[in-house]
């Protein structure tokens, strides 16, 4: 299977259109397109980065900075699994899953970075401590990571001041929930844990991420420098 492209995961072109629109279209145009395409994330983030930073200097920006760090974590995890060859050793169905999730998380990084502009934190270095090296460990960690992301976004949604961003959180939390369910199904466990996913606040998520020791001051070690398509 060839590398996924943004075109493949973004069937209606909404993400690409939206990224371009962030710098070109008027806000009204983007809202119109968002209504047609249903891209709440893009509607929410409409406008150039400076405008977003200016209108939301405190809590919402801080929350999105946290969100970007989390997306960095996820996107790097999936990218590294491709780089070290773990994804290539998977069967076709499993590899498609891993590549799709990686492409989605890289798209999320690209969008949030553009929106935050100069307020975007730099990408940390990660050390996944061997969890990208084998299919088994990679899958288990992916399930935990996607469940945690769903809980994070569900926790974020009601705390955002700007309703644009609340709408964006909804359009993203469902994607992360899909990732989690898909991962669980491939792992042979029931994709639905309970009737209501339990949200987590930023403190709770921060503690869990810290417990993984995935954030490292050292550069992550990989066996190849090949970049998957569309690395944000």
């Amino acid at each position: 299977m060839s590398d996924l492209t943004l075109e493949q995961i973004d069937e209606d072109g909404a993400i690409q259109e939206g990224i371009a629109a962030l710098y070109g279209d008027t806000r009204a145009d983007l809202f119109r397109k968002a209504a047609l395409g249903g891209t709440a994330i893009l509607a929410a983030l409409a406008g150039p980065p400076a405008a977003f930073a200016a209108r939301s200097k405190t809590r919402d920006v801080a929350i999105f900075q946290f969100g970007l760090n989390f997306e960095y974590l996820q996107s790097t995890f999936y990218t590294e699994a491709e780089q070290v060859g773990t994804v290539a050793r998977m069967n076709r169905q499993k590899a498609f899953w891993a590549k799709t999730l990686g492409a989605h998380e890289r798209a999320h990084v690209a969008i949030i970075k553009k929106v935050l502009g100069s307020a975007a934190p730099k990408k940390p270095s990660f050390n996944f401590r061997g969890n990208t090296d084998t299919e088994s460990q990679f899958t288990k960690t992916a399930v935990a990571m996607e469940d945690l992301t769903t809980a994070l976004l569900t926790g974020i949604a009601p705390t955002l001041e700007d309703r644009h961003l609340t709408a964006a959180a909804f359009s993203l939390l469902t994607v992360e929930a899909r990732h989690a369910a898909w991962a669980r199904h491939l792992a042979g466990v029931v994709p639905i844990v309970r009737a209501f996913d339990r949200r987590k606040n930023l403190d709770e998520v921060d503690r869990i991420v810290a417990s993984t020791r995935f954030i490292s001051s050292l550069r992550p070690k990989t066996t190849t420098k090949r970049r998957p398509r569309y690395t944000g």
Partner: protein
Amino acid sequence: MWGPSEARFPGGWTVGERVGHTRGDFLRRTLIAGGILGGGALIGAWPEGADSAPSAKQDHRILTFALRLELLQVAFYEQGAAALQGELLEFAEVVGRAERAHADFLRSHLGGETGNEGRFEFGDTIRNAKTFAAKAHLLEETVTAAYIGQGANLTASLIAGFGELTSVEARQAAWISDIIGKNPAPHAADPAMTAGEVVTALRDAALLGQ
């Protein structure tokens, strides 16, 4: 998997002071007009977007709309289960239980003012496994998109619970997608549907009357 504590996100995050903002433009564009029909009878009206700021009245409209969708799903899984076996039967049972819990949650927030909850009859529409699976996929995708379209229109106290429900609908959509060989996560950012689009999609699939 998740090991002992050591590292933290550099830069971290802080909780700043609350920021005021104007919701009007966004809400005027996102609120929707429309209605939902069940069994051929009008069972709920949908608001025009004139008074679009989050309010108790608007919450009631949204939760009533969501309750109708949950009840439709409960009936769908109850009536469809007889034709199923294996993983599809497990899916219908697990998801059916979740939908009943969702309906209870919505009823509790509606304070007993749920109006005519209606009845749903699907007949031959879902009397074989293949048709059931296709309809279930459409139903879960539609409900997920409907909730994405409404979450931000609720008052703040309801958003958290509605989000916890919405993410489960997305899990259900992904599960049935994988069962039938469709991409469980086809978009990097999920699309929303207006109430009108929801009604049209369900009618076109013969899951709602005309």
